[in-house]
């Protein structure tokens, strides 16, 4: 029960911080800050998401091939890192330089969101399974 509440609390804190940061970024006083960080953001996203994608995909691949358990168990163990890795990979694709921003740029981002939500669902199921 305590773990449940600590998880809920950490989730609430993270979401609240994100919302507050978003609102702070939208204020007129944050305009110089936004202008200052604007050029560096794509590189930041590409580097970090690429590192994360490689890490998660490697972990997923290792889980998939090296565990001495049944195939379904291996897939279950690899699903979360593979989802997170795919999400990070889509983030990289969405931020790769492109001569013209078009609707095609939107699909990797939507894919990243889809995989992130899938990863959350997988993690939740895994947690529920381990609790029971």
């Amino acid at each position, binding site marked *: 029960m305590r773990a449940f509440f600590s998880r809920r609390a950490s989730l609430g804190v993270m979401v609240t911080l994100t919302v507050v*940061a978003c609102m702070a970024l939208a204020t007129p006083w944050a305009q110089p800050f936004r202008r200052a*960080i604007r050029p560096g953001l794509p590189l930041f996203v590409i580097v970090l998401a690429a590192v994360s994608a490689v890490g998660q995909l490697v972990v997923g691949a290792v889980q998939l091939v090296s565990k001495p358990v049944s195939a379904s168990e291996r897939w279950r163990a690899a699903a979360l890192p593979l989802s997170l890795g795919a999400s990070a990979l889509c983030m990289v694709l969405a*931020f790769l330089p492109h001569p013209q921003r078009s609707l095609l740029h939107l699909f990797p981002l939507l894919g990243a969101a889809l995989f992130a939500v899938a*990863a959350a669902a997988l993690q939740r199921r895994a947690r529920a399974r381990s609790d029971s």
Partner: protein
Amino acid sequence: MKYRMGVAAIAATALIAGACGERDGGSAPLFTEPGFPGSAPAYITTGSASIVDPRTKQLRVVKPSELATAPGVSASVAAGGTGQVMLLANGAPGIAKSDGYYVENFVDASKHQHALVLLYGHFGGPPAAVQHYVDKALVSTTAYSWQHTTTGWLRTTSLTRVVQKGQLIGTYSATTAPATPPGPGKGGGGPAIPVRLERPAPRGLDRMLGGVAYALAFAIAPQDASAQLSPAFGACAQEWLRFAAAAAIIIGLDFTISEMPLITPAVTAQFAAALAQLGAAEDALLRCIMEHQPGTFHSFGGGGGPGAGTGGGGDNSCLEGSYAAHCTTPFTL
């Protein structure tokens, strides 16, 4: 329910009253045009067009007779002759009190993004120059000179330069002057035609009823360009979708991290990347909304706007319709 029906009835009544008030002309007109038919001074506008000869790279005046015979030459403006007189009424929208610039963005039916940048001189008044961008590329720039009359501002000269990839491809100039009395061999001219740039601003009850009717008509049956101007979803739909997707990634990662028994460096890096992505998406969304915000007037050199750095009062050559890089880049959004 009754309340809603009441509001709808009032709105419908206002719509009908406003429409009838404008049609029958029983009360004050709903237009901002000064009504001076008959007593207006007569003006005549003459124009001339030139295009750049691709062989000699020189401007060549196009004669009306050439248009029909020259192969590969076409023009959407009359190559010469008379044209309409442009008059802005005093206090009409589009007249500034000081220097600065105003940007109007819209998207046409072919999904091309248009931006009209109105540049104002040191003493304000009507725009001294207008730049037209299509998909962020300058396609034409027009310089105007105006004469302040008792009824408004009369355009005396204008020079339009048509530009393609930074190269001049043609010009069109127009000059308006008082017409001499009609006589043998004289053109005659005609009264100045007032220009209405924006929605009307009548008085009293008409103002209220007309305003409600106009707002309803504007909202219910949007015009071509105005329909594209909604900063909420119309012009920034992609930015909204990007922001929503970035927020979904963050929420998904938040849930994942909160449920994880151990937070790995890879997940931490991914969370940081997602935060940066959310920041970038929010920044793009805010910029898009501000770009498409109607009625935003920017001052030269003040407020840290994009026009800052051009010097107080703006560069004279830019106000004369120059298409040089320093005249166009500060206003390219």
